[in-house]
């Protein structure tokens, strides 16, 4: 058996698992592992500027590829700095492995320098965690971590590695575990046949059905199957924030996003549906509005790989535990040959009703001569990227504008922190995307608040030559907070404005990038042209937008799904 140090085992296990990129930051407890990383080329290490950035990069990497993202950080502050990133991945079910250094075993519990109980700190926001106690256990622990992270409902897994077991001076036999099985962990992938029969019966009998698709369809790589079901049954399709792109947003059957800032047609169709087929979506509070008034006419079929997601907020009629791809296949097989023409005829009245709602054109907005509207910025990005970019987003108004005005035709193109709503996610996530897709266009839609939460990563972008396009919607305010203050707090702007904004153009230049400031609607198109023509450089677009623009449509609190504001003055 090959002999090597614990540190070498860490790197070797990563290599044997096919890990190509690690995002991290060195420090005392992981110096041995960094030493082992030094003399090899199999695993590329990306040196970040803050560990939170490393976690978001690994996350963006994972979201855009489906491949588990990897983070390597030291003990104590290095580890705790990743917690927001881990929680972000946990809430959105993103596969990630976090290798954290730990103080030497004999000092655990002594409040040693840079000691924190990382397994304890991260426990509520990980799928699982390991504290490895012996060097010979390293390969198995890491292999298990990757297995757990990217099977079943994906999620982050922490592997805590005390310094003494990775000591470069002590050698141990290395054995890569070819097969990882765990008696306590066997996710259910196939739906129960009885439930499949029930579901297909309900679907085929429905007169006003709707397909409600979420991030689970992307995680299960089930886009084609979802599309097949939708097309065969002529179903209208609405998507959660996390599911955008699972079903093409430019498909004629797509109604766009649903929920708090969903389209009128999506929320109306949900509320009036007699059958909801939920594929990998979890009836989150940002979707349902008041659960007491949620979709009163619908028989709900809920397909989810996590049994705990079923009937958690909304009681469902036909629960199906399984992965979206497997269940979709089973459903298609069960339904057999469907006469699509006949099905179209059956749903003609339903579609006619939907077209009426669509006719309200809820996303229309008024352009202005002097002020740039955020919506037109997103439309311009769409135009200049031919709708084919990887778009990462931060959190706030700009996130909703991006979700609504940039229809995604493919899965894994829309990268955003949906569940946790982490400001500061966008830039590092776009960097992870760019590391995985070196030739693709990686755009960040951000705002003047969010971008400043991880702006230090501009330095990493220079080091690794990441030609990201940062589209910052600068409204000199925390837009979404301000919108809520306008709506619910009599426009008392408590701490939602920023008095001393940096000069973002100079800031970008200071980091070695290109900065472009846009202030007038007439300049927008040319500036965007210039931005996307810079193929090899990072461009920071600081775009001054109308400070008073709100995101609409918006559900009215405590109402049903379709109780909505359509503008500052109109309601449904």
């Amino acid at each position, binding site marked *: 058996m090959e002999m090597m140090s614990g540190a070498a085992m860490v790197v070797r296990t990563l290599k044997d698992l096919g890990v190509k990129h690690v995002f991290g930051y060195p420090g005392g407890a992981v110096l041995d592992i960094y030493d082992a990383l030094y003399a090899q080329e199999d695993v590329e290490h990306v040196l970040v500027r803050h560990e939170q950035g490393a976690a978001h990069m690994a996350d963006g990497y994972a979201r855009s590829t489906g491949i588990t993202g990897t983070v390597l950080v030291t003990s104590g502050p290095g580890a705790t700095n990743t917690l927001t990133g881990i929680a972000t991945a946990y809430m959105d079910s993103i596969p990630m492995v976090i290798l954290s250094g730990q103080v030497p075993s004999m000092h655990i519990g002594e409040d040693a320098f840079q000691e924190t109980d990382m397994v304890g700190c991260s426990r*509520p926001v990980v799928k*699982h*965690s390991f504290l490895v106690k012996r060097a010979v256990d390293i390969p198995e622990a890491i292999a298990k971590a990757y297995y*757990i992270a990217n099977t079943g409902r994906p999620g982050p897994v922490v592997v805590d590695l005390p310094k003494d077991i990775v000591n470069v001076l002590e050698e141990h036999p290395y054995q890569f575990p070819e097969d990882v099985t765990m008696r*306590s*962990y066997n996710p259910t992938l196939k739906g129960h046949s009885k439930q499949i029969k029930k579901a297909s019966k309900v679907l085929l009998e429905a007169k006003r059905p709707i397909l409600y698709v979420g991030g689970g369809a992307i995680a299960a790589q089930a886009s084609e199957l979802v599309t097949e079901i939708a097309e065969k049954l002529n179903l209208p399709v609405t998507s959660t924030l996390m599911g955008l792109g699972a079903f093409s947003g430019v498909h004629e059957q797509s109604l766009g996003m649903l929920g708090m800032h969903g389209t009128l047609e999506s929320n109306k169709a949900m509320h009036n549906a007699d059958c909801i087929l939920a594929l990998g979506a979890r009836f989150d509070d940002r979707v349902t509005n008041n659960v007491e008034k949620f979709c009163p006419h619908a028989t709900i079929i809920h397909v989810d790989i996590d*049994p*705990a997601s079923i009937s*958690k907020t909304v009681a469902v009629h036909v629960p199906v535990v399984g992965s979206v791809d497997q269940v979709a296949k089973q459903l298609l097989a069960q339904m057999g040959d469907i006469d699509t023409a006949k099905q179209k005829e059956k749903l003609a009245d339903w579609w006619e009703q939907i077209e009426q709602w669509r006719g309200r054109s809820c996303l229309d907005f008024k352009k202005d001569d002097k002020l740039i509207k955020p919506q037109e910025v997103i439309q311009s990005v769409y135009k200049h990227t031919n709708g084919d970019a990887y778009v990462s987003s931060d959190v706030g108004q700009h996130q909703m504008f991006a979700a609504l005005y940039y229809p995604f035709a493919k899965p894994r193109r829309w990268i955003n922190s949906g569940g946790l709503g982490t400001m500061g996610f966008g830039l590092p996530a776009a960097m992870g995307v760019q590391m995985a897709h070196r030739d693709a266009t990686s755009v960040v839609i951000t705002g003047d608040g969010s971008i400043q939460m991880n702006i230090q990563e501009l330095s990493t972008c220079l080091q690794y030559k990441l030609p990201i396009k940062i589209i910052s919607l600068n409204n000199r305010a925390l837009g979404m907070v301000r919108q809520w203050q306008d709506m619910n707090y009599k426009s008392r702007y408590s701490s939602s404005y920023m008095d001393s904004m940096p000069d973002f153009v100079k800031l970008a230049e200071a980091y070695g990038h290109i900065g472009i400031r846009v202030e007038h609607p007439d300049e927008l198109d040319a500036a965007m042209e210039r931005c996307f023509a810079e193929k090899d450089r990072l461009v920071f677009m600081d775009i001054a937008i109308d400070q008073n623009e709100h995101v609409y449509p918006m559900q009215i609190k405590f109402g049903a799904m379709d109780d909505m504001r359509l503008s500052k003055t109109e309601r449904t």
Partner: protein
Amino acid sequence: MKRIISVLMENAPGALSRIVGVFSQRGYNVDSLCVAATDDKSLSRLTITTQADDKVIEQITKQVNKLIDVLKVTDLTNGSHVERELMLIKVATRSELVRAEVNRNVDIFRAQIIDVDLNNYTIQVTGTSDKLDAFANVLAQSTEIIEASRTGICGLARGDKALRP
């Protein structure tokens, strides 16, 4: 409504804290918790008593089942089952009258005196939680209870049903 959840899990470090974590982070309450390794030392059996309605209990069992270290979860209160709790209770026995009364109650409740000191008896009693409550109440009527320690409920399903890996 009182529910008894029985859990079979890996006897691994940190496994218990994950279970307790699910209860605290999701706002479920724990009335009692009883845990020890099983005949197979690689496994632990855990019994949690909680108050919850059907919807919450469904979430609790699903969320606990979701933990990677957990093999099986069952709600014992769903079916016919046996449950027992053990209490050690120390009472003051300063007069012959009190000693006689305590002795009589020990007999009636089929308890056992397991330690005797100049001024007190330590008594062991097993049974349902109700019985333990009743016993403590009766003792309190005739003497002073110095201290008591209870294990919390542990239980098994009746008949062929079993929680096995």
